[in-house]
């Protein structure tokens, strides 16, 4: 039997327009990096060795797990039973976990950025680091915004502001957060691993 599909993606459609635009914008940075590398492969490979792959790895695990927590929060609201207060409390806890992880990502990235500046490496050092700082700092801004959005969702969820019939705002914020995760999933191997 054919399963009936939803006509539109979850959340407000406006957030999906933003998601599509963001994906296209970041693809410019990804492809700019990949094709610029062809101009000086040795420089890119040598510069890449100056990055700490462990930080990129930990941040990938953090974002994936944070995204997972957000999915659990949305599912908790969607499958809410008679005890609405308990479901809202559980969903709020999942969101609080994802906010904590978002904060951890930002702290690790700040440590990485300040470490590089302390070593005298910045946007103007070479083409590799120009792309590194541009793409990761731009992504950092998205994580920061996403964490603020999650905090607002947490506040509303905590007071029982979402129900199975009305949780468009929650799904919109969740979709944005998953986009941030998706972008990092491409960024991590590209900048830190592939050589």
């Amino acid at each position: 039997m054919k399963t009936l599909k939803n006509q539109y993606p979850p959340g407000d459609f406006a957030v999906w327009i933003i998601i599509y635009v963001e994906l296209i914008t970041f693809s410019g940075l990804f492809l700019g990096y990949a094709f610029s590398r062809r101009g000086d492969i040795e420089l890119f490979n040598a510069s890449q060795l100056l990055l700490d792959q462990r930080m990129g790895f930990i941040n990938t695990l953090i974002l994936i797990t944070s995204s997972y927590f957000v999915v659990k929060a949305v599912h908790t609201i969607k499958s809410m039973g008679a005890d609405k207060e308990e479901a809202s409390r559980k969903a709020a806890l999942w969101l609080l976990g994802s906010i904590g992880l978002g904060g951890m990502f930002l702290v690790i990235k700040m440590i990485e950025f300040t470490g590089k500046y302390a070593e005298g490496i910045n946007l103007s050092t070479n083409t590799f680091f120009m792309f590194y700082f541009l793409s990761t700092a731009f992504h950092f801004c998205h994580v920061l915004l996403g964490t603020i959005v999650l905090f607002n969702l947490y506040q509303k969820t905590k007071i029982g502001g979402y129900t199975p019939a009305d949780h468009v705002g929650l799904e919109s914020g969740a979709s944005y957060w998953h986009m941030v995760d998706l972008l990092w999933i491409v960024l991590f191997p590209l900048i830190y691993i592939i050589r």
Partner: protein
Amino acid sequence: MDVITRIWIALVGFTIFAFLLGWLKLVSLIGVGILLFTTFLKGQLVIDYFMGLNEVELKYRVIPTIWLGIVISLIAVAYYLPV
């Protein structure tokens, strides 16, 4: 164990695999292809199960999939095309 938890475990597994390839300096030309393929799989899992687009009509589901496919393919071209 629910589907979402299994997806999360798969994503963590792919991430550990990618990190180990890099950490152990095993990224050869074939390694680049494997890494890009697993990156596509990871992205598709996020699109389908975290974003929930596997429950949405195909026309909306394929937009991020096409984006991911084009980006990964062009990155592969940039790495594999002779300089």
